[in-house]
């Protein structure tokens, strides 16, 4: 259970890292290694060169930018995010998510960027970041581009990131309403998870818009447009009823795999359970949002 031999480089700038990974042979970025090193040891992934990005300054910053958006450096560990004052203040649900990812060893070294780039369908952060309408900033040899979290994961273990593109930062608008995340798991990874964000109107009593994403059921997090539509301009107090009414049709639209985490009907049912529990939590949180 050792990886095949590889070269190891530790550049100190993003440009050097991108250049290094693009050289001949298979090069891969390496940060926490909690997924990559396991896969290398099991020899399901091969790399000739690992480009360690831990020597690059600035990749682990968390801040609110001038556009009232929250930026999370891709190299932030789950542990760092879970304890960060900005995240705890503005997106406490993300802080709790990061505090519960996998296990303590993974949280201490695993990074949010690495988690996204691995494209594991049974993961916590992608669902949440999609619900938060996050953009991922990729830096490659041909320049910088932004990809919406919804479009980032293409399929199981596959993203739109080019091998020589480095995920630099994750950016999303500061939430204007309650944010919830719930998952069900009976093992190492979530069987199903649901993230929901509400933007409240200025009165604080009605939902202007909602984003709902369900993860781990298919190849990537899926939106629930029926529920999102049902929540538009609905009073917070009536949100649960609105979701309940829309739920059967919404769940029917989900693409659900049967796998080791359970049968499709069971996991579809769980998505509904989690969504309703999220609604109760959001209603409670919504009531105090402006106070």
């Amino acid at each position, binding site marked *: *259970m*050792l990886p*095949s*031999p590889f070269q190891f480089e530790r550049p100190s700038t993003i440009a050097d890292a991108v250049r290094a990974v693009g050289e001949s042979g298979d090069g891969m970025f390496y940060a926490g290694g909690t997924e990559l090193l*396991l896969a290398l040891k*099991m*020899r399901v992934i091969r790399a000739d060169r690992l480009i360690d990005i831990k020597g690059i300054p600035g990749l682990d910053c968390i801040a609110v930018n001038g556009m009232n958006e929250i930026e999370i450096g891709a190299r932030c560990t789950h542990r760092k995010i879970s304890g960060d004052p900005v995240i705890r203040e503005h997106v406490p649900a993300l802080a709790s998510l990061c505090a519960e990812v996998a296990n303590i060893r993974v949280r201490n070294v695993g990074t949010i960027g690495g988690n996204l780039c691995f494209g594991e369908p049974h993961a916590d952060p992608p669902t949440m970041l999609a619900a938060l309408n996050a953009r991922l900033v990729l830096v490659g040899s041909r320049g910088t581009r932004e990809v919406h979290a919804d479009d980032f994961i293409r399929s199981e273990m596959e993203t739109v990131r080019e091998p020589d593109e480095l995920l630099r930062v994750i950016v999303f608008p500061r939430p204007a309403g309650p944010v919830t995340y719930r998952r*069900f798991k*009976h*093992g*190492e990874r979530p069987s199903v998870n649901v993230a929901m964000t509400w933007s409240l109107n200025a009165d604080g009593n009605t939902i202007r818009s909602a984003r709902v994403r369900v993860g781990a059921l298919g190849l990537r997090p899926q939106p629930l447009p029926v529920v999102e539509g049902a929540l538009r301009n609905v009073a917070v107090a009536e949100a649960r009823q609105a979701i309940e009414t829309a739920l059967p049709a919404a769940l029917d639209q989900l693409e659900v795999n049967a796998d*080791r985490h*359970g*049968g499709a009907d*069971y996991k579809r*049912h*769980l998505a509904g*359970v989690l969504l309703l529990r999220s609604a109760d939590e959001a209603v409670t949180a919504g009531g105090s949002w402006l106070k």
Partner: protein
Amino acid sequence: MSVTDSMSAVRPDLIEKVTGRAEYVTDLVIPGMLHGFVVRSPATHARISSIDASVARSVPGVVDVLIGADVVSFGCWGVVLKDRPIMAIDRVRYVGEPVAVVIAETIEIAEVAAELVDIAYDELPHATTIREAMMADAPLIHEHHENLEDFYFKGGARPTPSSNIFHTYRNDVGDVDAAEAVAAYVHEDHFTFPAISHFAMEPHAVIADFQGDSLTVWAGAQTPTAVQKVLSRLFGLALAKVRVIVPFVGGGFGGKASVKIEPLVAAASWKVRRPVRVAQSMAESMLTCRRLGADITIRTAVDANGRILAKSARLLLDGGAYSDTGSAVATKSANRIMGPYVVPNMRLEACAVYTNTIPGAAFRSIGGPQAVWAKESHMDNVAAAIGMDPTEFRMLNLASRGERIRPDLRALDMDMSELIGRVTRSFAPDAQPSNRKAHGLALAATDPANTPISNAIVRLKIDGSILVSVSSIEVGQGAHATMAQIAAQTLKQKVSAVTVLRSDTAVAPYDWGTGASRSTVVVGLSVESAALDAADQILDMVAEVWELPRDGLSLVEGGVSTGPDVLTFHQIFHRSLGVDSGEVVGRGAITPRSKKGSLAESPLFWETSAALAEIVVDEETGEIRVPRYASAADVGRVINRVAAEGQDEGAAVMGLGHALHEALEFEDGQPVNATPIDYSIPRITDVPPSFDTILVENGDGPGPGGAKGMGEGAILPVAPAIANALFAAYGIRITDLPMTPEKVWRALQKRN
């Protein structure tokens, strides 16, 4: 007392372990040592059509590659049936079977070169489940069965020729048919139990060093003398030339009992004539052995008052590709499906079956969890069917102390109603089951195979320090601390004066092995007897040299009291021997004839467990939580409380894993979750927040101070107690483990 002192007083190994100084096999470096990496079968059942190791051999740093052709002449080995080659020779019988060992200067080189060994397979028809293996046209996984009577266990296996059944055990008492004919009610159930991984934190790791006609092996082995014997026979070496050294072992649970990868590593060293180390990963150890899955039919007949008239059980056990100790697991499963009840008529049958899967092995209470899962779930079903409260039904049918539950087994040496009372009282009156909380009870009384054969040496030195040599291994259970306490108490010295030597067959005398809850009782008795022998020698010395009456002398801390005076050990040795040096060597032996033959009857004691579980079910997800759990065992006498409670709690939490989480799954013989990532065991957050461990001490056991063995009992009742709580609250009966949320949800849906 400092924290480290108080930890050391409880368990001398704790400080070594928490500071990382404790040595396990993987920490050892033997001069000249090479590294082996095992190439494993990807096929379920196949003929090996060719092996080409030439490219691998040419890799710089590779010393050699061991393949089946090298070991043909050694023949097969086994501990009950001689059915296993050192490695696959012309045929593989399960995914994970060793086919080649690449031996290199470094483990990195060995692993890289392992990918270059080119092996071609021709698939054979396979049988990967009990049902497939028992079909009339099933492929035969073994054509011949060479029986080794009394080699490891008393008795051998009883294979059925030209079938995959490698052992059948039957025991009939009375007349079940006649009893069923007059019964008021007969109820039958069917249960299944999956294969389960031992999941020890330390995977199998072995270093072997062949030197001429002698062989030294460092292994995390639970039964070093069995390893010694198998290696001696396989390689034609004298027993005295085979040395097995066992440093600290990081968990065994039966997965390191009998013999595992030691013959393979020894053959690698034989091939290159240098020490070779094979340190498996956890995933490789998950492919090495596992608990036997089971398919169980159980039927009970009761009279109009609810008294049990007859019980019959048929247990089919999935033994995997090689028998190992699967025959004993099957026999024990039949014995463990009975008690602790009075059953006048019984028909028991257990079969162990070969399948093309990872070989079955001993695992904490062999056959016990399988049998108790079925019998205790069944008890509640029978009670419900006749409209009786399940606890009342059990109480009505309990066998009492002194009663025999089967004529060929020792009378019960405990009072199960006392244990039921203790767990019931542990749940405070305010913990009555409510709509949300449900309670379930389950009981077990099992017959440990604690072969009464053991030897110990206790050496008392001139400065009062004491050395204890036993073959018992320290696998985390605290056996060495317990032996030290027994020696110290017997010789009236401080426990800190005692050192228990690392297990080494060249130093320690013969013992059967560490397992079956036997060490405290059997090895403990031999240590006690060796300490008494040492005491006799020192007291005789004083009586003779000082010319004092022997009965006036007694041991005290640091020496011998003559009544008015205390002579230090220094004074005694100095004056007796003329020089200021020396020691006495006490020898203790336990055999079936010891203690006037009282140890010969089986079992030596009954290992007991009663459990009450409180569960809360999330009805929407099917997830079961266990907020409260009480576990009671009659252990006779506690010698080391921290170790004893740790054993009981550890066994119960392992049982919780069996109940709610664990199953080693196969698809067409391919393991689908045999990695630590995909296989799920309980975490500390899954452990019941309220956990009451009740150790009943009546001082009536056969061991030192009236101790009985323990450590395997508490694993038994967990799953049925939880299942019975689920049945009580929702009327749903889960019949196959683990009780995953999805299974529970589906059962709830079906009921609605």
